[in-house]
């Protein structure tokens, strides 16, 4: 089964989504940590009232985390679950 085209597709659908996204959010988080560490002036720039860039970027980390979670849930329901269920029912029914 592991060698089959059907499973290959499921594996690709998972990896091609999860791996790049993991690299992307880790890089985005590291960028934020590095900016906090080494770009104090930029982070202290006021945006509106007392709200500065640092706070906006921090809240943006929350927002991107929520969005990625939602996006993955959608991807999994549309692309992964049907493939996984098809393989599972075939293996448990047939072989």
């Amino acid at each position, binding site marked *: *089964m*592991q*060698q089959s085209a059907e*499973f290959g597709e*499921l*594996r690709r659908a*998972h*990896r091609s*989504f*999860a791996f790049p*996204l*993991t690299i992307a*959010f*880790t890089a985005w*988080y*590291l960028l*934020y*940590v*590095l900016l*906090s*560490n*080494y770009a*104090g002036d930029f*982070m*202290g720039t006021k945006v*509106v*009232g*007392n*709200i*500065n860039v*640092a*706070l906006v970027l*921090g809240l943006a*980390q*929350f927002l991107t*985390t*929520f969005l*990625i*979670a*939602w996006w*993955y*849930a959608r991807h*999994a329901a549309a692309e*992964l*679950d049907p493939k*996984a*269920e098809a*393989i*599972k029912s075939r*293996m*448990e029914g047939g072989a």
Partner: protein
Amino acid sequence: MSPASHTLLAAGEASEHRTLIITLFAVFVAATLVITVWAGRQTKDAADFYAGGRQFTGFQNGLAVSGDYMSAASFLGIAGAIALFGYDGFLYSIGFLVAWLVALLLVAEPLRNSGRYTMGDVLAYRMRQRPVRTAAGTSTIVVSIFYLLAQMAGAGVLVSLLLGITSDGGKIGIVALVGVLMIVYVTIGGMKGTTWVQMVKAVLLIIGALLLTFLVLLKFDFNISDLLGRAADNSGKGSAFLEPGLKYGATGTTKLDFLSLGIALVLGTAGLPHILIRFYTVPTAKAARKSVIWAIGLIGAFYLMTLALGFGAAALIKPDEIIASNKAGNTAAPLLALHLGGVDSGWGAVLLATISAVAFATILAVVAGLTLASSSSFAHDIYANVIRKGQATEKQEVSAARWATVGIGAVSIVLGALARDLNVAGLVALAFAVAASANLPTILYSLFWKRFTTTGALWSIYGGLVTAVGLVLFSPVVSGKPTSMFPEADFQWFPLENPGIISIPVGFLLGVVGTLMSKEAPDEGKYAELEVRSLTGTGAH
């Protein structure tokens, strides 16, 4: 009398506060004990004890995961750090939250599909069982004990502060009480009881945080800019209070330390055994995914609220008063409750007592989860699979788990009592660093790297573990500074408090080196089986 209890209790009628707090503590304890006994009656076989019968829904488990994860360190510690250091306190919570994406995208679902009861199940799946299970059990127990110790000592400090207990005997008594309660929850209620306790606690914590957040925002007519401005003015630090740098920005070393901490937080969560075993309590990988999504929503919302609590405390309470109560700011949230209700009013006392009881509930739920993780791993990985070589019956295994709970509980009571005056807050960060260095590399390689071998797993687990623990041993966390665990001793040479920046790459690298150096061939049949099972759930327990 410590200045801490002085500030909290002198504010109103000291004894009245105390009675109210103790009453609420007692109500929570009584309610959780009823739940535990009820859950205990339904705990019949090993799947019940280790995995709560795998019948929880995604939402229920999401609540319990949040309850397991949001420790007193995050409720009191982050609110306090924001109250004292402003923006830098907030940095913590971002790492704690973003980390959940690693669990969501790479770990939760494959783990649910391929394991049974412990993290070791997945690590050892396609490896030689005995050595890898021994390694997995060791690192599970080390991570959990560090974490547990920090929580127990924290509980002693916190409850003493809230109740105004300052005698040594009193503090030891509290540590012992927490220890005995966690032993009772776990031995009687197993995973089912622990899960319900964590769910109740999560609901209480979120309601408590919502209430305080609402009251803070009400004071500022829901104008966040005003709140921040007042916090900056009142802190005496001006706009620097709203920018990064007050806590971590002092020198090049502290900046590097923060980077190291940030990496450990983001990569550690998905390697914490007490979090990972929670995914076995749901029936399918889909439900495991739903639990993580709920957890991200709940934990994220909670950390956003700690922002309001921390800045609210900074805006409404003089920094001197917060520091006088507890140097690290750990009592900022309870103090905020008192001030919001009115320092001399009955309403202030009620609010203070409620928030204190929530903090106590928080500690109990987290220590129960940690104890369960370590005793499960001892019984399932080490006793059943290494010592008895898979020959133990289910009954013997569960009974070993119960005895291990008593043993681990007793050890942590003794260590917690001994450590009551040591500064052990650094141990939580250490637990994250060990989890990221020793556990996460092996989990990811096992699931996704075909060539990975037993030797690679052993090198990675032991190498990551020894590097992380070793570096901390020689860091300022343990010796060489007034804030160290042993301030009189000085054998420190590693400058950073968090070892992650070194030990995590070491853990990942050793997994590769060990695999390439070993002559053994990977078990390809087993990997094929694991891969199909982890992605489809075929043959999952």
